[in-house]
């Protein structure tokens, strides 16, 4: 009897510190004027209803994932899936540095981010999903027309990146209850690699035109939204195995209609 009680206590103590499921907010989606129109001109993007994590994935969460998925450990990962800086900021393969637990997980490659999302029955958001959710502020689903809002975001990006990363969750929630879409870390999306690929089906014909449209692909409406242009420029420059100190991620799920 005492043995059983001791066993129960030991088992409880062995449970990971956070067993709570990550919080996802529902976003109804809809028609959306994207900076990257699907037809390369002006067609709105159609964003199906989806759910998005309210916060970026933290180092603590990624550690729990690495513990149970040894092929994604820093000392176990295949070189095709991440560069030499993968999780470089941790003090050990399964060891966080002081204060890192609640900071957004960075130094993660696209492959690792995708694998983490799969481990919680989720996926990376698409560019359109991210852009849609990021257009919102605390009171408006689409704050992009407000120059003061755009300025604020640019101010955040002007902050030097040598400062320690804040914890997740300190930003103001937008109308969907989602935080930290701006100014904390850049974030992976599932289709980062194709942002500058033409969406126009007439470009299929000429093989020499398969390279990218560049500025022609960006909608004239939003050329003033420098923050989103910076995001596109960064994501387009990446390869799937790349990791950086300012690039993290969060996960998305399809929306299951109840």
């Amino acid at each position, binding site marked *: 009897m005492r043995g059983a009680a001791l066993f129960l206590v030991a088992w409880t103590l062995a449970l990971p510190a956070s067993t709570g499921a990550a919080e996802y907010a529902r976003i109804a989606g809809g028609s959306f004027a994207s900076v990257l129109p699907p037809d390369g001109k002006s067609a709105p993007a159609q964003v199906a209803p989806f759910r998005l994590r309210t916060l970026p994935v933290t180092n603590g969460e990624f550690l729990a994932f690495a513990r149970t998925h040894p092929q994604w450990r820093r000392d176990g990962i295949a070189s095709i899936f991440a560069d030499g800086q993968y999780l470089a900021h941790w003090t050990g393969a399964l060891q966080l540095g002081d204060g890192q637990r609640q900071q957004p997980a960075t130094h993660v490659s696209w492959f690792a981010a995708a694998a983490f999302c799969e481990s919680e029955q989720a996926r990376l958001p698409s560019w359109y999903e991210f852009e849609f959710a990021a257009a919102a502020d605390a009171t408006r689903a689409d704050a992009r027309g407000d120059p003061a809002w755009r300025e604020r975001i640019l101010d955040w990006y002007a902050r030097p990146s040598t400062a320690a990363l804040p914890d997740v969750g300190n930003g103001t929630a937008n109308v969907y209850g989602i935080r930290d879409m701006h100014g904390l870390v850049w974030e992976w999306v599932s289709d980062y690699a194709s942002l500058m690929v033409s969406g126009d089906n007439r470009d299929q*014909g000429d093989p020499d035109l*398969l390279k990218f449209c560049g500025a022609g692909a960006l909608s004239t409406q939003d050329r003033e939204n420098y923050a989103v242009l910076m995001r596109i420029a960064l994501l387009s420059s990446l390869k799937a195995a790349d990791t950086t100190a300012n690039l993290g991620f969060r996960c998305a799920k399809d929306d299951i209609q109840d």
Partner: protein
Amino acid sequence: MIFMTRVFAALALFLGATTVQATSPEPAAPLPGDSVYQLDAVLTDQRGHEFKLADLRGRPVLIAMFYTSCKYVCPLIVDAMVRVERALGDAEKKDMHFVLVSFDADHDTPQTLAEIATQRHLDASRWTLTRTDAASVRKLAAVLGVQYRATTDGGFNHSSIVSLLDQRGRIVARSTRMNEADAELLQAVRRVLAAPVSAQR
């Protein structure tokens, strides 16, 4: 005493059994960290046969991504691969594997793949045309460095790259020359085919 003898006997039998197993084909050496076959993906070929990407291990592979309803560029990709095939001798051809993976997870099926294989008279003993799930398409494109985007009419705009994988799945050459013979690619194929057996496992 008798009990211990029985234990020893059982142990001996067990060890004997495992020793027998140990003399059957040795397990393959671990994959190199930069092998494309590190990616877990399940492909379905033009005969409806499912297999793991890593099952391609053992022969050099020329691999490209395409889709069957692609009218203009994809035939050129096949042309580029056929050009290499035709330049090889019979013995060389036998050791090569030509693999195509479709971008179109929603519409490409064994039937659509088989149609292309028939149309282009692709030898089934070395051409494998496949489809896989959308998430694996994205990951495979990522490891091969192929960019693609769905167009509004159900097609895809995509880069055209033919990649040469060695017997262990490492990318050793790439070609973006779809319109003309690529002598460097052919040389790379010959080099990989000629590699010593010990480097191939």
